Structure formats: C-alpha cells, structure tokens
C-alpha cells in the first residue's frame, strides 16, 4: 500500500503503527503523529481518513487525533488473530554441523 490509498487495501502494519503510537501517547496532533510513526504527512492523513471512517480514531476541532474503543479493540483483535496462528508454531532447534 505504497500509493497512499488506504481505502483500496490498507497496510495492516501502518494501521498497527498508528494505533500503537496513539495508545502510548494518547491524543496527538497530526504533525506529531506523523513524526512519531515515521510516516509522510500526506500518507498519514489518508490513513487517518480511512481509520476515522471506521471509527477507529476521532479527530477533534483542533486537529488532535485520539484512539477510540473500537480502534483499541481492532488492534487487540489483530494481535489476537496473529497470536492464534503464530502461537501454534513450534520451531525446531537447528544446529548446523560442518
């Protein structure tokens, strides 16, 4: 999702990064959020629009972005979903002998 069009296929990594930052720092303005997440401002705004549509975040009149309960739940769902599969993996102890 490098074109900056999250409505077609959002990058879960980017969404997770935004939510994680918001969860750690609470409300932030868009510029600070862009800096914290290491994203280009334009790209961030597009993602915020996509996330706002799904009520993951709310943006107040001063332009501050905050995480909603839905956003937090979506993040926890994502973590739980990944853990459901990755948690089953058992890795053998490999030790190459030459």
């Amino acid at each position: 999702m490098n074109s900056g069009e999250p409505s077609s296929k959002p990058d879960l990594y980017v969404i997770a990064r935004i939510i994680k930052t918001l969860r750690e720092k609470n409300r932030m303005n868009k510029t600070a959020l862009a800096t914290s997440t290491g994203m280009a401002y334009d790209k961030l705004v597009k993602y915020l629009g996509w996330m706002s549509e799904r009520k993951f975040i709310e943006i107040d009149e001063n332009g501050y972005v905050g995480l909603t309960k839905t956003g937090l739940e979506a993040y926890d769902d994502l973590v739980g979903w990944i853990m459901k599969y990755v948690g089953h993996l058992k890795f053998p102890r490999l030790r190459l002998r030459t």
Partner: protein
Amino acid sequence: MMPEESVVSKVEELMETLDHVKKYNALANSLRRFALVIACSFVIFFVLRGLVDFFDLSSTLDRPIFLLVSFTLLLIPLVGVAAGIMIVRKKVNSVRTGEWKEELSHGFPSALKMLLELDWDKTFDEISVGRLSYFLYALLKTAAYWFITFFALGFIVATFAFFFPLRSPLFGGFLPALLSLLIVFLILRNDLLRRYKEIRSLDMLLWELRWFSLELRRTEFQT
C-alpha cells in the same frame, strides 16, 4: 507475557530459525566446491599411488622409506577433506544473522510487517535445498572418510607386516572395505544420528511454515 510480546517473541524465534536456514543455504552454495576439492585431492592421491606402483617403488625403496611415502600419500586426501570442510565452514560463518533485530525492537507492528512481507515460497525453496544439500554433504563426507579409512587400514597392515612378516596376506578382497565401513560407521554413528535428526527437524519446520503461510494467506483480517 502480554499477547503483543508473545507475538514479537514468536516472530523472533521464527527469524532466528530462518537465519539458521540461511546457513544451510550457504552450505548448499559451497557444496560443489567442497566436492571438487575432495575429488581433486583423491585424484592426486590415486595418480601418485599409480606412479608408485608404476615405478615399483615398493620393491626398489627401503621398506621404512616406502612406508613413509605411503603415509605422506595418505595425508593428501586428509588435507583435501580438511580444506573442503574449512571452505564450507567459512561460507557458513560468513552468513549475516540478526539483521532483523533492530526492526523487531519496534514491537508488534514490526513483527506484523515481517510476517506479511516474508517471501514464503522462497523460504520453502531454501529449506528444501538446504535439507538436500545437508544430506549430500553428510554423504560425501562419510564416503571420503570411508576411502581414507580404507587406505589407512592398508597402511597399518603394511606397517604391521613389516614388523611381523607373514607368509600369507593378512587380509584381502572385500574385507578391508567392509571393515573400514564399519569403523567409519562406529566413529560417525552419533554424528550421523544428529544429522538425521536435523534433517527431520528441517522437514518439520517446512510443514509448520507451510501450514502457517497457508493460514496467513487464507484468512483476511476484517477491520
């Protein structure tokens, strides 16, 4: 442990395992050179042995000197095997590992990114090639040890016969070949067992990751 930390920890395990797979691939890449070095050392050994027989040095040289020549010849394939192993070891040790650690230190989002961006098909190919190469490597090495043991036995018998002359030959035919194979098997028994277990582990890893990648591709997270 928090679920996020558990995911990161599991991805860390996965990446460490894939680092190991990279080492098996490095071995695969150096396998041809390993085989070539060993083959060359054996060719040199056989050519020199052929020359010794051609010039009938066993009867023209004094017995101790002839034994010394035989021993020196035996060192050639030994050096070849040692050089081959060193080449493989150098290649395996040059594999860069842990390059993902810095990125993974950013927590769950980075772990997620790594999982989603992994080239699974390439990983499966690497595991398959690594597994096969590891088997071939063990096979070549065992065969080389067998040859060396076979000729070393011949040398020991010749030395023994020098000190304790016998009328009839001490042994011949298939016996030295079987005996040397038995000796190599006894010496390498634990090593071969460990290699077998490791190949089985690579098999299991392949199945685990195939299952995981299928689940990952099949399911779409509904936001």
